[in-house]
Structures are given as structure tokens and as C-alpha cells.
């Protein structure tokens, strides 16, 4: 019936996942190199939990903090891209099921996407 579309969806999902992981790892690596060059000699102390600074705690703050002088924001942006990868996978699945006119799976996928968007963008 719709096997052609399901297989095509699987191929697209595979590409989305691979691209997301490679791209985010590359950005985290670059940010990490920049961080070690600039802050390599500072003390690493993570025994007591203070929490990451406010500027690294939300999508908007991270994008705002991004810049060549803020290496940790570059790392955090790469991690954000990584978190977005499975979310993009769900979004592509939603489009795929919509094209297949599979109403049940459009509803199921929308619920999952809503939970994910609430988590990453929700105001708390």
C-alpha cells in the first residue's frame, strides 16, 4: 500500500539523524578547542553543584550569547543542535505520515512533537 513512502521516510530519517550528529559534534569540538585555548588554565571544579550560568540555560539565551569570544556558548549551541536532532526526526516523520494520509499517525506524532517542543521551549 504505502510501503514506498515508508521506505522513503526511513531514508530521510536516517539522513536527518546522521547529519545532526556530525554537525553538532563538529560544532562542540570547535567550541571545545576554543574553550581550552582561552580557559585551559582555569580550575575545573564541579564537585559542588552551582548549575550552568543563566546564559547557557535556554535556546534564546544561548543564541544571544553566541559569538567568537564566548566559546562555551558555541559548545552549548552544538549541544542544542544535538537535542534538536531527534526533534527534527519527529517533525520529518509528521510530514511523512501526513503525505501518506495516515491520520492515526499524524495524531500520534503530533502529540510526541508537542511534548518535545514544550520541553525545549516551554516557559518555566
Amino acid at each position, binding site marked *: 500500500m504505502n510501503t514506498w513512502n515508508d521506505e522513503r521516510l526511513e531514508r530521510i530519517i536516517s539522513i536527518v539523524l546522521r547529519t545532526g550528529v556530525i554537525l553538532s559534534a563538529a560544532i562542540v569540538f570547535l567550541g*571545545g578547542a576554543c*574553550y581550552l585555548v582561552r580557559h585551559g588554565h582555569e580550575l575545573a571544579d564541579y564537585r559542588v553543584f552551582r548549575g550552568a550560568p543563566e546564559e547557557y540555560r535556554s535556546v534564546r539565551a544561548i543564541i544571544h550569547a553566541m559569538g567568537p569570544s564566548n566559546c562555551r556558548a558555541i559548545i*552549548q549551541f552544538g549541544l542544542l543542535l544535538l*537535542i534538536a536532532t531527534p526533534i527534527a526526526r519527529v517533525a520529518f516523520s509528521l510530514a511523512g505520515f501526513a503525505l501518506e494520509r495516515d491520520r492515526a499517525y499524524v495524531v500520534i506524532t503530533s502529540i510526541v512533537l508537542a511534548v518535545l517542543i514544550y*520541553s525545549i521551549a516551554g516557559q518555566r
Partner: protein
Amino acid sequence: MTNLEFTPLVFLISMTAGYLGALTGLGGGVVVTPALTLLLGVDIRYAIGASLVSVIATSSGAAAAYVREGFSNIRIGMFLEIATTLGALLGAFLSSRTPTSILAVIFGLVLLHAAWQSNRGHSERSTNALPDPLAARLKLNGTYPGDYGGDHGIEHYNVSNVKAGLGLMLGAGTISGLLGIGSGALKVIAMDQIMRIPFKVSTTTSNFMIGVTAAASAGIYLNRGYIEPGIAMPVMLGVLAGSMLGASQLIGARVRVLRRIFAIVVAVMAIEMIVSGVRGS
């Protein structure tokens, strides 16, 4: 310790965890948290934040291959993700309200279970269990490439106990969000033993779901400051590199002995986690 010493050390620990996690099927995330807290004294909240991020990386990387090969069932994954993502949200909320000593104890218990589970093996059974009418309605029943390959090797399977499986997935998601792990062991139990999905399909579909489940708690972790770039960077890169190395050696490697040894190491770490938690409270 300066960052120039800390970062490579964490990278090496994470790479080892990722390598052994891939070889044994335990996953790197579940090993990296006890390693960071027990060896380096890192606060467990920083450790689970970094571990969660690494779980998304390894799961997405591996899923890209499995989906293409036709093992993962994306409909089963999508449907069960309703439960795992809601559970993950709940777990992440609970995580910040749970004292770290209790988190350590729960972590140790889950780790013990995972070590035991990974060593138990699994029994192949008839793939045509009693089909659930709900599974047919949701188009969950599927096919996968059998042992012979090609068109002749396509195996069909039916899915049972959909509602019970969904319930257990809610629990797996909660544990994942609470401890920053993939909780693959629980997901496989739900699919393999409760829903009677073939083992190979269960493990690959579990892997497929882990990334989305972890992404659901990642937003909350980020907001609470659990994802600290200075730790998450070497952990994510290390676990990813280690698990890619492990996966490439999986075929043909003699993993049986290694799996045994590693299960014992993990069990010892689990007990240390429990002891440290009990002492801390």
C-alpha cells in the same frame, strides 16, 4: 585540576565508557555517570546532564544505520514514544526535587539491573504470538530482514499486549528522565518480553526511541543548569567516539568474556553508588 587536565581525562573516561557500553549493549550513558561521580567527584547533577546529551548522540548515530537496514519499526517507535516522552518529562521534573543521595541509590539499583539483564541473554521464541487487535489497527505488525538476507529472508511478526507495553514504556521514560540515561534495558524488556516483538527489532527500535526520549528531558535539564558546557563537551565527544569504535568491532569480536568482565565492573560501580548514596544522606 585545570581545564587542560580535566577535559582530556573526562574525554578518556567517557570514551572507555562508550566503547564498553557499545560492546556490551549497556550503552555508554549508564556507565559514564558513576565513573564521573566516583572517580572525579563530579556532582551527580552535572554528570547526568552530560550523560543525557551523550545518550542522544550515540542513539541518533546508531539509529541512522538501523533504520536504513530495516530493523527498527518506526511505527512501533513513534507510538510508544508518546509514553516514553511523557515519562521523561515527569522524570526530569522529579530529578530536581529528589535529593542527590537518593538519586545515587536509585541509579545504583538501575545499574545493577542493567548489568544483570545484559548477562542473561534471551530466548528465541516463535515470532507469531497471539496478535493484539490494537496492534493491527495501529499497523504495528511488521517485517524485518531475517538471517538469510535478500527478499526470501523477510520475516513477519505480530505485536501483543500493546497497552501493557505502553504502560511499561511510561516507566522506562521516567527512569530515563530521572537519571539521564537511555534506559534501553527496560525498553527492550517491554518490547521483547511483554509485546513479544523479535529481539533484533526490539533492540534496534529501543535505540531509535532513546534519542527522542532523552530529548524530552533535555530541555528541562538545560533549564535547570544540569548541562554544563565544560563537562558535557568532553563527555559527549568521548562517548560518541568510544561507541563508534565499539560498534565497529562488534561484528566478529569475542565479546562474551568481555561482557562478563564488564558486567562485574558495572555491578561493583552500582554497589559503590548505592553505598555513597546511603552515606551521603
